[in-house]
Protein backbone atom coordinates (compact mmCIF):
# COMPACT_ATOMS: atom_id res chain seq x y z
CA UNK A 1 0.00 0.00 0.00
CA UNK A 2 1.29 3.44 -0.88
CA UNK A 3 2.30 5.40 2.14
CA UNK A 4 1.47 8.88 0.91
CA UNK A 5 -1.70 10.03 -0.79
CA UNK A 6 -1.10 9.62 -4.50
CA UNK A 7 -2.66 12.16 -6.81
CA UNK A 8 -3.96 9.27 -8.88
CA UNK A 9 -5.99 7.97 -5.97
CA UNK A 10 -7.78 11.24 -5.51
CA UNK A 11 -11.10 11.52 -7.26
CA UNK A 12 -10.95 15.04 -8.72
CA UNK A 13 -14.59 15.45 -9.71
CA UNK A 14 -15.77 14.50 -6.23
CA UNK A 15 -14.92 17.76 -4.49
CA UNK A 16 -17.88 20.05 -4.38
CA UNK A 17 -17.49 23.68 -5.26
CA UNK A 18 -17.79 24.72 -1.63
CA UNK A 19 -14.98 22.50 -0.53
CA UNK A 20 -12.64 24.20 -2.93
CA UNK A 21 -12.79 27.32 -0.80
CA UNK A 22 -9.90 27.98 1.53
CA UNK A 23 -9.74 25.03 3.96
CA UNK A 24 -10.47 25.78 7.62
CA UNK A 25 -7.61 23.56 8.78
CA UNK A 26 -4.30 22.66 7.16
CA UNK A 27 -2.26 19.82 8.57
CA UNK A 28 1.16 19.60 6.95
CA UNK A 29 3.72 16.90 7.46
CA UNK A 30 2.58 16.24 11.01
CA UNK A 31 4.75 13.82 12.95
CA UNK A 32 4.05 12.73 16.50
CA UNK A 33 6.39 10.61 18.52
CA UNK A 34 5.27 9.50 21.98
CA UNK A 35 7.77 7.76 24.26
CA UNK A 36 9.73 6.31 21.34
CA UNK A 37 6.71 5.30 19.27
CA UNK A 38 6.55 7.12 15.94
CA UNK A 39 2.75 7.25 15.81
CA UNK A 40 2.29 9.82 13.03
CA UNK A 41 4.91 9.97 10.29
CA UNK A 42 4.30 13.00 8.12
CA UNK A 43 0.53 13.33 7.88
CA UNK A 44 -0.84 16.04 5.56
CA UNK A 45 -4.50 16.80 4.88
CA UNK A 46 -6.96 19.67 4.87
CA UNK A 47 -10.39 20.13 6.39
CA UNK A 48 -13.05 21.83 4.26
CA UNK A 49 -14.69 24.98 5.69
CA UNK A 50 -18.13 23.33 5.64
CA UNK A 51 -19.53 19.88 6.25
CA UNK A 52 -17.97 16.81 7.80
CA UNK A 53 -14.50 15.55 7.00
CA UNK A 54 -14.00 12.07 8.35
CA UNK A 55 -10.70 10.63 9.51
CA UNK A 56 -10.67 6.87 8.94
CA UNK A 57 -8.33 3.98 9.43
CA UNK A 58 -7.86 0.79 11.34
CA UNK A 59 -7.33 0.85 15.08
CA UNK A 60 -4.00 2.24 16.16
CA UNK A 61 -3.16 4.18 13.00
CA UNK A 62 -3.13 7.48 14.89
CA UNK A 63 -6.57 9.02 14.39
CA UNK A 64 -6.99 10.05 18.01
CA UNK A 65 -3.34 11.10 18.14
CA UNK A 66 -4.01 13.41 15.18
CA UNK A 67 -7.01 15.07 16.84
CA UNK A 68 -5.15 15.46 20.11
CA UNK A 69 -2.15 16.96 18.35
CA UNK A 70 -4.43 19.51 16.68
CA UNK A 71 -5.95 20.58 20.00
CA UNK A 72 -2.57 20.59 21.75
CA UNK A 73 -3.13 17.58 23.99
CA UNK A 74 -0.11 15.51 23.02
CA UNK A 75 1.28 14.21 26.33
CA UNK A 76 4.30 16.10 27.72
CA UNK A 77 6.57 13.19 26.83
CA UNK A 78 5.46 13.43 23.20
CA UNK A 79 7.14 15.29 20.40
CA UNK A 80 5.16 17.03 17.63
CA UNK A 81 6.64 18.20 14.34
CA UNK A 82 5.18 19.71 11.21
CA UNK A 83 2.56 22.42 10.88
CA UNK A 84 -1.08 22.77 11.84
CA UNK A 85 -2.75 25.96 10.67
CA UNK A 86 -6.26 27.30 11.08
CA UNK A 87 -6.48 30.05 8.49
CA UNK A 88 -3.25 31.98 8.79
CA UNK A 89 -2.73 31.05 12.44
CA UNK A 90 -0.37 28.31 13.50
CA UNK A 91 -1.88 26.06 16.19
CA UNK A 92 1.26 24.21 17.17
CA UNK A 93 2.83 24.96 20.53
CA UNK A 94 -0.15 26.96 21.71
CA UNK A 95 -1.76 25.93 25.00
CA UNK A 96 -4.97 23.93 24.66
CA UNK A 97 -7.20 26.42 26.49
CA UNK A 98 -6.15 29.19 24.09
CA UNK A 99 -6.87 27.03 21.05
CA UNK A 100 -10.28 26.13 22.41
CA UNK A 101 -11.07 29.76 23.17
CA UNK A 102 -10.01 30.56 19.62
CA UNK A 103 -12.88 28.46 18.33
CA UNK A 104 -11.63 24.88 18.30
CA UNK A 105 -14.24 22.63 19.91
CA UNK A 106 -13.08 19.19 21.07
CA UNK A 107 -15.34 16.26 21.91
CA UNK A 108 -12.94 13.55 23.13
CA UNK A 109 -13.10 9.81 22.75
CA UNK A 110 -15.03 8.16 25.60
CA UNK A 111 -16.91 11.44 26.16
CA UNK A 112 -15.01 12.48 29.30
CA UNK A 113 -17.91 14.15 31.06
CA UNK A 114 -17.19 15.04 34.69
CA UNK A 115 -18.92 12.12 36.38
CA UNK A 116 -19.00 13.70 39.84
CA UNK A 117 -20.56 16.96 38.66
CA UNK A 118 -24.18 17.48 37.72
CA UNK A 119 -25.26 17.95 34.12
CA UNK A 120 -25.83 21.66 34.77
CA UNK A 121 -22.37 21.98 36.33
CA UNK A 122 -20.77 20.22 33.36
CA UNK A 123 -22.40 22.79 31.09
CA UNK A 124 -21.61 25.71 33.40
CA UNK A 125 -17.94 24.78 33.25
CA UNK A 126 -17.95 25.43 29.51
CA UNK A 127 -19.33 28.96 29.94
CA UNK A 128 -16.89 31.75 29.19
CA UNK A 129 -16.56 35.20 30.58
CA UNK A 130 -17.56 37.90 28.13
CA UNK A 131 -19.76 35.70 25.95
CA UNK A 132 -23.35 34.61 26.34
CA UNK A 133 -23.56 30.81 26.50
CA UNK A 134 -25.93 29.44 23.85
CA UNK A 135 -28.14 27.35 26.13
CA UNK A 136 -31.02 27.76 23.65
CA UNK A 137 -29.03 26.02 20.93
CA UNK A 138 -27.90 23.21 23.25
CA UNK A 139 -31.30 22.55 24.79
CA UNK A 140 -33.00 22.70 21.38
CA UNK A 141 -30.73 19.86 20.25
CA UNK A 142 -30.78 18.01 23.58
CA UNK A 143 -33.94 18.74 25.60
CA UNK A 144 -32.90 15.84 27.84
CA UNK A 145 -29.98 17.89 29.21
CA UNK A 146 -32.36 20.61 30.38
CA UNK A 147 -34.57 18.11 32.19
CA UNK A 148 -31.66 16.29 33.82
CA UNK A 149 -29.77 19.37 34.97
CA UNK A 150 -29.47 18.24 38.59
CA UNK A 151 -28.49 14.67 37.81
CA UNK A 152 -24.89 13.59 38.22
CA UNK A 153 -23.27 13.15 34.82
CA UNK A 154 -21.80 9.83 35.94
CA UNK A 155 -25.29 8.35 36.26
CA UNK A 156 -26.30 9.24 32.69
CA UNK A 157 -26.47 6.57 30.00
CA UNK A 158 -23.70 6.43 27.42
CA UNK A 159 -25.85 8.19 24.84
CA UNK A 160 -26.80 10.95 27.26
CA UNK A 161 -23.17 11.41 28.21
CA UNK A 162 -22.30 11.79 24.55
CA UNK A 163 -25.06 14.40 24.17
CA UNK A 164 -23.63 16.23 27.18
CA UNK A 165 -20.11 16.10 25.75
CA UNK A 166 -21.33 17.57 22.47
CA UNK A 167 -23.66 20.05 24.18
CA UNK A 168 -20.81 21.32 26.35
CA UNK A 169 -18.88 22.26 23.22
CA UNK A 170 -21.86 23.82 21.45
CA UNK A 171 -22.40 26.25 24.31
CA UNK A 172 -19.83 28.46 22.60
CA UNK A 173 -19.38 29.40 18.96
CA UNK A 174 -16.77 27.28 17.24
CA UNK A 175 -14.90 27.62 13.97
CA UNK A 176 -14.13 23.91 13.82
CA UNK A 177 -15.27 20.89 15.82
CA UNK A 178 -13.06 17.87 16.46
CA UNK A 179 -15.24 14.89 17.35
CA UNK A 180 -13.62 11.60 18.32
CA UNK A 181 -15.66 8.41 17.92
CA UNK A 182 -18.99 9.79 19.13
CA UNK A 183 -20.91 6.55 18.52
CA UNK A 184 -18.43 4.20 20.20
CA UNK A 185 -20.16 1.74 22.47
CA UNK A 186 -23.65 3.10 21.89
CA UNK A 187 -26.82 1.16 21.06
CA UNK A 188 -27.86 1.29 17.37
CA UNK A 189 -30.84 3.54 18.08
CA UNK A 190 -28.64 5.99 19.98
CA UNK A 191 -26.05 5.88 17.20
CA UNK A 192 -28.73 7.15 14.83
CA UNK A 193 -29.65 9.94 17.26
CA UNK A 194 -26.04 11.05 17.60
CA UNK A 195 -25.61 10.96 13.82
CA UNK A 196 -28.73 13.11 13.39
CA UNK A 197 -27.42 15.64 15.86
CA UNK A 198 -24.01 15.81 14.21
CA UNK A 199 -25.70 16.25 10.84
CA UNK A 200 -27.53 19.30 12.16
CA UNK A 201 -24.44 20.65 13.88
CA UNK A 202 -22.40 20.29 10.70
CA UNK A 203 -24.82 22.60 8.88
CA UNK A 204 -23.35 25.54 10.75
CA UNK A 205 -19.81 24.52 11.69
CA UNK A 206 -17.24 22.31 9.95
CA UNK A 207 -16.46 19.02 11.70
CA UNK A 208 -13.41 16.80 11.66
CA UNK A 209 -14.81 13.45 12.71
CA UNK A 210 -13.13 10.21 13.73
CA UNK A 211 -15.68 7.44 13.27
CA UNK A 212 -15.51 3.67 12.96
CA UNK A 213 -19.16 3.12 12.12
CA UNK A 214 -19.27 3.25 8.33
CA UNK A 215 -23.04 3.69 8.23
CA UNK A 216 -22.56 6.91 10.17
CA UNK A 217 -19.66 7.89 7.92
CA UNK A 218 -21.81 7.32 4.84
CA UNK A 219 -24.55 9.49 6.25
CA UNK A 220 -22.40 12.40 7.44
CA UNK A 221 -19.10 12.64 5.69
CA UNK A 222 -18.36 14.48 2.50
CA UNK A 223 -14.59 14.23 2.50
CA UNK A 224 -12.55 11.37 3.85
CA UNK A 225 -8.95 11.07 4.95
CA UNK A 226 -7.73 7.53 5.50
CA UNK A 227 -4.71 6.89 7.67
CA UNK A 228 -2.64 3.74 7.51
CA UNK A 229 0.45 3.07 9.57
CA UNK A 230 0.85 6.69 10.63
CA UNK A 231 0.52 8.15 7.12
CA UNK A 232 -2.26 9.35 4.85
CA UNK A 233 -3.19 6.47 2.55
CA UNK A 234 -6.10 8.04 0.70
CA UNK A 235 -8.03 11.31 0.54
CA UNK A 236 -11.10 12.19 -1.46
CA UNK A 237 -14.86 11.94 -1.56
CA UNK A 238 -16.18 9.83 1.29
CA UNK A 239 -18.98 8.19 -0.73
CA UNK A 240 -16.51 7.32 -3.44
CA UNK A 241 -14.38 5.52 -0.88
CA UNK A 242 -17.29 3.58 0.55
CA UNK A 243 -18.43 2.47 -2.92
CA UNK A 244 -15.02 1.04 -3.76
CA UNK A 245 -15.11 -2.39 -2.18
CA UNK A 246 -11.47 -2.97 -2.88
CA UNK A 247 -10.44 0.29 -1.27
CA UNK A 248 -12.47 -0.09 1.90
CA UNK A 249 -11.25 -3.62 2.21
CA UNK A 250 -7.58 -2.80 1.83
CA UNK A 251 -7.66 0.44 3.84
CA UNK A 252 -10.21 -0.32 6.52
CA UNK A 253 -10.43 -4.08 6.48
CA UNK A 254 -14.16 -4.30 5.73
CA UNK A 255 -16.21 -5.24 2.71
CA UNK A 256 -18.92 -3.01 1.27
CA UNK A 257 -21.64 -5.39 2.44
CA UNK A 258 -20.89 -4.25 5.96
CA UNK A 259 -21.03 -0.65 4.80
CA UNK A 260 -24.48 -1.08 3.37
CA UNK A 261 -25.99 -2.99 6.29
CA UNK A 262 -28.37 -0.49 7.91
CA UNK A 263 -27.46 -1.32 11.52
CA UNK A 264 -23.81 -1.80 10.70
CA UNK A 265 -21.81 -1.50 13.86
CA UNK A 266 -18.69 -2.31 11.97
CA UNK A 267 -15.86 -3.60 14.01
CA UNK A 268 -12.94 -2.33 12.01
CA UNK A 269 -10.47 -3.62 14.52
CA UNK A 270 -8.64 -6.68 13.49
CA UNK A 271 -7.02 -8.50 16.41
CA UNK A 272 -3.62 -8.16 14.82
CA UNK A 273 -3.67 -4.38 15.16
CA UNK A 274 -5.26 -3.99 18.55
CA UNK A 275 -2.75 -1.37 19.67
CA UNK A 276 -4.43 1.62 21.28
CA UNK A 277 -4.03 5.09 19.82
CA UNK A 278 -2.80 6.43 23.09
CA UNK A 279 -0.17 4.75 25.25
Amino acid at each position, binding site marked *: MSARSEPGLRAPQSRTEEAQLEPILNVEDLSVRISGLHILQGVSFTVAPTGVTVLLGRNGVGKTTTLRAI*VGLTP*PAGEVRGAIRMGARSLLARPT*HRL*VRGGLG*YVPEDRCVFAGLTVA*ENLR*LAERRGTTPAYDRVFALFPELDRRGRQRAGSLSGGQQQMLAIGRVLLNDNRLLLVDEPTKGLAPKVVTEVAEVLERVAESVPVLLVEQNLAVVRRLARDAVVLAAGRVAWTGDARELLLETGLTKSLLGVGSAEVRAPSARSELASPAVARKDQP
Partner: protein
Amino acid sequence: MGTVILLTLTGLGLAALYFLVASGLSLVFGLADVLNFAHGLFLGVGAYGTWWAAGNLPGAGSDGFGFVLAVAFGVAAGTLVAILVELVLIRPLYSRTIEQVLVTVGLSLAGVALLQATWGADARPFPRPDWTRQVTGILGAQVPNGGLLLILAAALVLGAILAFLRWTRYGLVIRAGVENREMVTALGIDVRKAFTLVFAIGGAAAALAGALGGVYFGTVSPGQGGSLLIFAFIVVVIGGMGSVVGSAYAAVVVGLVQQFVNYYGTSGLGDICVVGLLAVVLLLRPQGIAGKVATA
Protein backbone atom coordinates in the same frame (compact mmCIF):
# COMPACT_ATOMS: atom_id res chain seq x y z
CA MET B 1 -16.29 9.03 81.56
CA GLY B 2 -14.46 12.28 82.00
CA THR B 3 -11.30 10.72 80.62
CA VAL B 4 -13.08 9.44 77.53
CA ILE B 5 -14.52 12.87 76.84
CA LEU B 6 -11.20 14.55 77.43
CA LEU B 7 -9.44 12.08 75.12
CA THR B 8 -12.13 12.50 72.49
CA LEU B 9 -11.89 16.28 72.53
CA THR B 10 -8.10 16.41 72.59
CA GLY B 11 -8.12 13.77 69.83
CA LEU B 12 -10.45 16.00 67.84
CA GLY B 13 -8.12 18.93 68.50
CA LEU B 14 -5.28 16.92 67.02
CA ALA B 15 -7.58 15.89 64.16
CA ALA B 16 -8.33 19.56 63.54
CA LEU B 17 -4.63 20.27 63.21
CA TYR B 18 -4.17 17.34 60.83
CA PHE B 19 -7.16 18.39 58.78
CA LEU B 20 -5.93 21.97 58.38
CA VAL B 21 -2.66 20.67 56.98
CA ALA B 22 -4.15 17.76 55.01
CA SER B 23 -6.97 19.62 53.27
CA GLY B 24 -4.54 21.71 51.25
CA LEU B 25 -2.22 18.79 50.57
CA SER B 26 -5.13 16.74 49.35
CA LEU B 27 -6.47 19.42 47.00
CA VAL B 28 -3.02 20.17 45.63
CA PHE B 29 -2.36 16.50 44.97
CA GLY B 30 -5.84 15.83 43.63
CA LEU B 31 -5.79 18.74 41.19
CA ALA B 32 -2.18 19.20 40.23
CA ASP B 33 -0.65 15.78 41.02
CA VAL B 34 1.97 17.52 43.12
CA LEU B 35 3.18 15.81 46.27
CA ASN B 36 4.10 18.92 48.16
CA PHE B 37 6.66 18.06 50.83
CA ALA B 38 7.14 21.77 51.43
CA HIS B 39 3.62 22.05 52.83
CA GLY B 40 5.04 21.91 56.37
CA LEU B 41 6.95 25.06 55.57
CA PHE B 42 3.68 26.97 55.11
CA LEU B 43 2.75 25.84 58.61
CA GLY B 44 6.08 27.07 59.96
CA VAL B 45 5.69 30.40 58.21
CA GLY B 46 2.19 30.77 59.68
CA ALA B 47 3.42 29.99 63.18
CA TYR B 48 6.49 32.24 63.05
CA GLY B 49 4.57 34.94 61.20
CA THR B 50 2.01 35.06 63.99
CA TRP B 51 4.71 34.93 66.66
CA TRP B 52 6.67 37.74 65.00
CA ALA B 53 3.60 39.90 64.40
CA ALA B 54 2.45 39.62 68.01
CA GLY B 55 5.76 41.08 69.15
CA ASN B 56 6.56 43.55 66.37
CA LEU B 57 3.56 44.48 64.26
CA PRO B 58 1.91 47.68 65.47
CA GLY B 59 -1.59 46.95 66.71
CA ALA B 60 -0.95 43.23 66.98
CA GLY B 61 -0.43 41.52 70.29
CA SER B 62 -1.14 38.42 72.26
CA ASP B 63 -4.70 39.18 73.28
CA GLY B 64 -8.05 40.26 71.91
CA PHE B 65 -8.10 41.98 68.55
CA GLY B 66 -4.32 42.25 68.52
CA PHE B 67 -4.10 38.46 68.56
CA VAL B 68 -6.58 38.15 65.69
CA LEU B 69 -4.44 40.59 63.75
CA ALA B 70 -1.30 38.60 64.51
CA VAL B 71 -2.92 35.36 63.30
CA ALA B 72 -4.20 37.14 60.19
CA PHE B 73 -0.64 38.30 59.49
CA GLY B 74 0.69 34.77 59.94
CA VAL B 75 -1.95 33.33 57.62
CA ALA B 76 -1.28 36.02 55.03
CA ALA B 77 2.45 35.29 55.17
CA GLY B 78 1.84 31.54 54.75
CA THR B 79 -0.51 32.16 51.82
CA LEU B 80 1.99 34.44 50.13
CA VAL B 81 4.81 31.93 50.51
CA ALA B 82 2.57 29.17 49.11
CA ILE B 83 1.72 31.29 46.06
CA LEU B 84 5.37 32.13 45.48
CA VAL B 85 6.40 28.48 45.80
CA GLU B 86 3.80 27.49 43.21
CA LEU B 87 4.64 30.26 40.76
CA VAL B 88 8.41 30.11 40.99
CA LEU B 89 9.30 26.50 41.81
CA ILE B 90 6.41 24.19 41.00
CA ARG B 91 4.99 25.73 37.83
CA PRO B 92 8.04 25.04 35.64
CA LEU B 93 8.06 21.45 36.86
CA TYR B 94 4.49 20.24 36.27
CA SER B 95 4.41 16.67 34.99
CA ARG B 96 8.00 16.14 36.16
CA THR B 97 7.31 14.22 39.33
CA ILE B 98 10.84 13.39 40.45
CA GLU B 99 12.03 16.96 40.09
CA GLN B 100 8.99 18.20 42.00
CA VAL B 101 9.64 15.85 44.89
CA LEU B 102 13.29 16.90 44.99
CA VAL B 103 12.43 20.59 44.92
CA THR B 104 9.75 20.40 47.60
CA VAL B 105 11.82 18.16 49.88
CA GLY B 106 14.77 20.51 49.44
CA LEU B 107 12.59 23.51 50.09
CA SER B 108 11.20 22.01 53.30
CA LEU B 109 14.74 21.37 54.57
CA ALA B 110 15.94 24.80 53.52
CA GLY B 111 12.87 26.43 55.06
CA VAL B 112 13.42 24.79 58.43
CA ALA B 113 17.11 25.76 58.28
CA LEU B 114 16.16 29.34 57.46
CA LEU B 115 13.74 29.53 60.39
CA GLN B 116 16.46 28.09 62.65
CA ALA B 117 19.07 30.51 61.38
CA THR B 118 16.78 33.47 61.96
CA TRP B 119 15.12 32.62 65.26
CA GLY B 120 17.16 29.76 66.66
CA ALA B 121 16.52 26.03 66.94
CA ASP B 122 14.92 26.18 70.38
CA ALA B 123 11.21 26.31 70.99
CA ARG B 124 9.98 29.82 71.70
CA PRO B 125 7.04 30.61 73.96
CA PHE B 126 4.06 31.44 71.79
CA PRO B 127 2.08 34.61 72.48
CA ARG B 128 -1.50 33.59 73.21
CA PRO B 129 -4.53 35.04 74.87
CA ASP B 130 -4.94 34.07 78.52
CA TRP B 131 -8.24 32.31 77.96
CA THR B 132 -6.60 29.75 75.68
CA ARG B 133 -4.43 28.59 78.59
CA GLN B 134 -7.47 27.82 80.66
CA VAL B 135 -9.74 24.81 80.56
CA THR B 136 -13.46 24.44 80.10
CA GLY B 137 -15.46 21.83 81.99
CA ILE B 138 -17.42 19.71 79.53
CA LEU B 139 -19.39 16.80 81.03
CA GLY B 140 -16.88 16.42 83.81
CA ALA B 141 -13.76 16.71 81.63
CA GLN B 142 -11.37 19.65 81.87
CA VAL B 143 -10.70 20.44 78.21
CA PRO B 144 -7.99 22.94 77.21
CA ASN B 145 -9.48 25.91 75.40
CA GLY B 146 -6.68 25.90 72.82
CA GLY B 147 -7.89 22.53 71.57
CA LEU B 148 -11.48 23.73 71.37
CA LEU B 149 -10.30 26.74 69.37
CA LEU B 150 -8.58 24.38 66.91
CA ILE B 151 -11.70 22.25 66.51
CA LEU B 152 -13.81 25.35 65.89
CA ALA B 153 -11.32 26.74 63.37
CA ALA B 154 -11.07 23.44 61.50
CA ALA B 155 -14.85 23.17 61.31
CA LEU B 156 -15.06 26.70 59.93
CA VAL B 157 -12.32 26.03 57.40
CA LEU B 158 -14.02 22.80 56.33
CA GLY B 159 -17.31 24.64 55.86
CA ALA B 160 -15.64 27.48 53.99
CA ILE B 161 -13.73 25.18 51.62
CA LEU B 162 -16.83 23.11 50.90
CA ALA B 163 -18.91 26.22 50.25
CA PHE B 164 -16.17 27.53 47.99
CA LEU B 165 -15.98 24.26 46.04
CA ARG B 166 -19.75 24.01 45.82
CA TRP B 167 -20.81 27.52 44.97
CA THR B 168 -18.06 29.34 43.12
CA ARG B 169 -16.82 29.19 39.56
CA TYR B 170 -13.27 28.35 40.67
CA GLY B 171 -14.62 25.72 43.02
CA LEU B 172 -16.30 24.12 40.02
CA VAL B 173 -13.07 24.27 38.04
CA ILE B 174 -11.18 22.64 40.92
CA ARG B 175 -13.72 19.85 41.35
CA ALA B 176 -13.70 19.17 37.62
CA GLY B 177 -9.91 19.40 37.47
CA VAL B 178 -9.48 16.83 40.24
CA GLU B 179 -11.54 14.46 38.10
CA ASN B 180 -9.99 15.17 34.70
CA ARG B 181 -7.57 18.06 34.40
CA GLU B 182 -6.99 17.66 30.69
CA MET B 183 -10.68 17.94 29.89
CA VAL B 184 -10.88 21.18 31.85
CA THR B 185 -8.28 22.74 29.57
CA ALA B 186 -10.13 21.26 26.58
CA LEU B 187 -13.12 23.38 27.63
CA GLY B 188 -11.02 26.53 27.28
CA ILE B 189 -10.07 26.98 30.95
CA ASP B 190 -6.55 27.86 32.06
CA VAL B 191 -6.27 25.27 34.77
CA ARG B 192 -2.94 26.64 36.01
CA LYS B 193 -4.76 29.55 37.65
CA ALA B 194 -6.68 26.99 39.67
CA PHE B 195 -3.37 25.38 40.67
CA THR B 196 -2.14 28.67 42.12
CA LEU B 197 -5.45 29.15 43.89
CA VAL B 198 -5.33 25.69 45.42
CA PHE B 199 -1.80 26.33 46.65
CA ALA B 200 -3.00 29.59 48.20
CA ILE B 201 -5.92 27.88 49.94
CA GLY B 202 -3.69 25.07 51.17
CA GLY B 203 -1.05 27.55 52.32
CA ALA B 204 -3.62 29.59 54.23
CA ALA B 205 -5.08 26.53 55.97
CA ALA B 206 -1.62 25.23 56.89
CA ALA B 207 -0.54 28.64 58.17
CA LEU B 208 -3.68 28.78 60.31
CA ALA B 209 -2.76 25.34 61.61
CA GLY B 210 0.67 26.76 62.46
CA ALA B 211 -0.74 29.74 64.34
CA LEU B 212 -3.38 27.78 66.25
CA GLY B 213 -1.01 24.86 66.81
CA GLY B 214 1.30 27.38 68.45
CA VAL B 215 -1.57 28.41 70.71
CA TYR B 216 -2.36 24.78 71.49
CA PHE B 217 1.21 23.67 72.27
CA GLY B 218 2.23 27.01 73.79
CA THR B 219 5.50 27.05 71.88
CA VAL B 220 6.77 27.42 68.34
CA SER B 221 9.80 25.61 66.92
CA PRO B 222 11.21 25.24 63.39
CA GLY B 223 10.64 21.48 63.16
CA GLN B 224 6.94 21.49 64.10
CA GLY B 225 5.69 21.47 60.52
CA GLY B 226 7.71 18.45 59.48
CA SER B 227 6.36 16.06 62.10
CA LEU B 228 2.79 17.17 61.53
CA LEU B 229 3.25 16.77 57.78
CA ILE B 230 3.90 13.02 58.07
CA PHE B 231 0.57 12.47 59.77
CA ALA B 232 -1.11 14.87 57.36
CA PHE B 233 0.15 12.74 54.46
CA ILE B 234 -1.27 9.65 56.14
CA VAL B 235 -4.59 11.48 56.54
CA VAL B 236 -4.58 12.43 52.84
CA VAL B 237 -3.94 8.87 51.71
CA ILE B 238 -6.56 7.40 54.04
CA GLY B 239 -9.09 10.06 53.09
CA GLY B 240 -8.54 9.77 49.36
CA MET B 241 -6.42 12.10 47.27
CA GLY B 242 -8.34 15.18 46.25
CA SER B 243 -11.23 14.80 48.67
CA VAL B 244 -11.63 17.46 51.34
CA VAL B 245 -14.45 15.59 53.05
CA GLY B 246 -12.39 12.41 52.99
CA SER B 247 -9.53 14.28 54.64
CA ALA B 248 -11.88 15.49 57.37
CA TYR B 249 -13.11 11.96 58.15
CA ALA B 250 -9.61 10.53 58.00
CA ALA B 251 -8.24 13.29 60.26
CA VAL B 252 -10.86 12.50 62.90
CA VAL B 253 -10.11 8.77 62.74
CA VAL B 254 -6.34 9.28 62.91
CA GLY B 255 -6.56 11.87 65.72
CA LEU B 256 -8.82 9.71 67.85
CA VAL B 257 -6.91 6.47 67.29
CA GLN B 258 -3.65 8.18 68.16
CA GLN B 259 -5.00 9.82 71.30
CA PHE B 260 -6.82 6.79 72.69
CA VAL B 261 -4.13 4.22 71.94
CA ASN B 262 -1.39 6.49 73.28
CA TYR B 263 -3.35 6.86 76.52
CA TYR B 264 -4.63 3.34 77.09
CA GLY B 265 -1.73 1.54 75.44
CA THR B 266 1.92 2.52 75.58
CA SER B 267 2.86 6.02 74.64
CA GLY B 268 3.94 5.94 71.00
CA LEU B 269 1.82 2.89 70.17
CA GLY B 270 -0.86 5.23 68.81
CA ASP B 271 1.49 6.49 66.10
CA ILE B 272 2.24 2.90 65.08
CA CYS B 273 -1.47 2.09 65.02
CA VAL B 274 -2.02 4.99 62.64
CA VAL B 275 0.56 3.59 60.25
CA GLY B 276 -1.11 0.17 60.59
CA LEU B 277 -4.44 1.81 59.77
CA LEU B 278 -2.86 3.32 56.68
CA ALA B 279 -1.68 -0.13 55.58
CA VAL B 280 -5.13 -1.62 56.11
CA VAL B 281 -6.83 1.14 54.12
CA LEU B 282 -4.32 0.81 51.29
CA LEU B 283 -4.94 -2.93 51.12
CA LEU B 284 -8.72 -2.83 51.33
CA ARG B 285 -9.54 0.47 49.64
CA PRO B 286 -6.53 1.89 47.79
CA GLN B 287 -8.43 4.93 46.56
CA GLY B 288 -9.03 6.01 50.17
CA ILE B 289 -12.31 6.69 51.94
CA ALA B 290 -13.67 9.08 49.37
CA GLY B 291 -11.72 8.23 46.22
CA LYS B 292 -10.47 10.80 43.78
CA VAL B 293 -13.38 13.21 43.77
CA ALA B 294 -13.35 16.67 45.29
CA THR B 295 -16.71 16.26 46.94
CA ALA B 296 -18.71 19.28 47.91
